[in-house]
């Protein structure tokens, strides 16, 4: 079979782009301002920034608007935009212990330093559609804000503070240690890798795994994290602490001075699991059980993602590949939303040549089969009884050509 180069579709593509723009605004509703999106679609934008691996709320809002609310497509645009900018700075390590906490809970202990702070969350709302929002007016918004502000008087004002970590209590008691995975404790295992600059190889250093998980797609992480909790990998942790808030970002300027440049909102999950100290029969007298954590951290408020990142961080350190969630390559290659979406959507691109090639093979096989059937019929003493009254001898030949016509 020869290849035939074709071209065309330029006008159709241009018209398709114009048409999708028409569908976005055809109802002539007032254009949505970016500031409105940024303010009122906070969680969607957080997800876009996390999966796009690019913290820029104003651009996240713009991307969301551009693609009619498709979060994954918006994350794709963010990651592409990110690739056009020079990276001039590397921050110092952010300090989540000094976070401006907006929410922090623990499901391991009731009483934690500073208390359980529910913060802004939909966890405790009833999942009932609020029809009042259908006619929400600016006056109603103002009235709510006034009422809300009045709840804090000058005397109630709290001084800015930070909160001690739950895991630090366990560590101080000697109950919490590192996982004890030998690969991760080696020099190569602890190396700081940037997966945007260095192709990943397996087994990957833990830094590469955490970076990939931090920009993975929430649904992908949740599916694999859930699989582990259900028994496929066996990591069913407890939330040591889940905190959401703002952390300071500092960089060195060209003179070497450390400069504060702003804050980013992050979600951090410390997932406590029991570390494996070997089978009971193999355990030495000095081998005592202890706890370790799986670590989750991502841009924005995205608790499901941070929790599942923590589960998978821990699962991938189990030292076996007995379940998908424990297998680095399986987890990391299949949870990057941009790559997965790109590959899935490439199926929509023309595959005319490869499909034609396959089709030719099928045609030849059908022809061979027909010839064989005819030869068998000629050499047989009596024609075999038809088992299917509705099928006729020509069906095998006709079917492919009918399918062909459809294609």
């Amino acid at each position, binding site marked *: 079979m020869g290849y035939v180069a074709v071209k065309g579709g330029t006008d159709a593509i241009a018209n398709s782009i114009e048409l999708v723009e028409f569908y976005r605004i055809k109802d002539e509703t007032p254009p949505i301002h970016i500031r409105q999106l940024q303010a009122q679609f906070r969680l969607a934008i957080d997800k876009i920034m996390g999966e796009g691996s690019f913290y820029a709320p104003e651009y996240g809002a713009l991307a969301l608007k551009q693609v009619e609310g498709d979060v994954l497509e918006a994350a794709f645009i963010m990651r592409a935009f*990110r690739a056009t900018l020079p990276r*001039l700075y590397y*921050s110092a390590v952010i300090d989540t212990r000094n976070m401006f906490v907006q929410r922090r809970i623990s499901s391991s202990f009731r009483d934690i330093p500073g208390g359980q702070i*529910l913060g802004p969350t939909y966890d405790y709302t009833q999942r009932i559609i609020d029809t009042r929002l259908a006619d929400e007016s600016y006056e109603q918004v103002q009235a709510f804000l006034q009422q809300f502000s009045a709840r*804090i008087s000058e005397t109630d004002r709290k001084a800015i503070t930070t909160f001690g970590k739950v895991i630090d209590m366990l560590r101080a008691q000697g109950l919490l240690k590192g996982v004890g995975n030998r690969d991760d404790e080696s020099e190569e295992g602890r190396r700081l890798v940037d997966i945007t600059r260095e192709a990943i190889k397996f087994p990957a250093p833990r830094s590469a795994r955490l970076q990939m998980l931090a920009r993975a797609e929430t649904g992908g992480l949740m599916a694999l994290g859930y699989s582990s909790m259900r028994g496929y990998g066996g990591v069913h942790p407890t939330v040591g602490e889940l905190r959401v808030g703002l952390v300071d970002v500092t960089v060195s300027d060209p003179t070497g001075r450390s*400069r504060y440049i*702003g804050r980013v909102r992050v979600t951090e999950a410390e997932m406590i699991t029991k570390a494996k100290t070997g089978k009971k029969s193999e355990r030495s007298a000095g081998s005592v059980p202890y706890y370790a954590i799986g670590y989750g951290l991502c841009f924005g408020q995205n608790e499901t993602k941070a929790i599942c990142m923590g589960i998978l961080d821990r699962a991938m350190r189990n030292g076996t590949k007995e379940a998908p969630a424990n297998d680095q390559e399986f987890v990391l290659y299949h949870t990057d939303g941009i790559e997965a979406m790109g590959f899935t959507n490439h199926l929509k691109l023309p595959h005319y040549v490869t499909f034609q090639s396959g089709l030719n093979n099928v045609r030849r096989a059908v022809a061979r089969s027909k010839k064989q059937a005819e030869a068998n019929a000629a050499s047989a003493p009596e024609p075999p009884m038809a088992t299917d009254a509705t099928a006729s001898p020509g069906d095998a030949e006709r079917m492919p050509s009918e399918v062909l016509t459809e294609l």
Partner: protein
Amino acid sequence: MEQNQRTDYILCECPLDNLTGFVGDLSVHYPLNLLKAPRLCLTMIQAEDSVEYQPFYLGEALTTTCEVAINKTVGYGICLGDEPERAYCLAVLDAVMALNDAQAPAIDRFLAEQLRLIQHREETELSHIMRTKVDFKLMEQA
């Protein structure tokens, strides 16, 4: 937080209008030379896990950077976001503060006032957040 970080914190977190107004008034006293106009770039944010302290890259953040000079004193402005005006103001104030001249008291007053506003805003937010602190009671106390 170091002193210069404290200053940056105030200038990054204060209302933009206050900052541009103040720097606009201040600028008339200096021969400012824009070395590098505000431009967008990236900061790679580094994090680490909280038990084994394994460092890793969390992702990048949009950043604006700018450089100005007053005679031979260079000022650098860096801030998160698409914030050309703020980055420019940060660079100007960085250069002016390095001179430590007659404008220093006015700058100190401006910083103190902005810090007060920022603290008020953050304390208000934290106070609302702390209203969501769980008050556990034993069942028989309920």
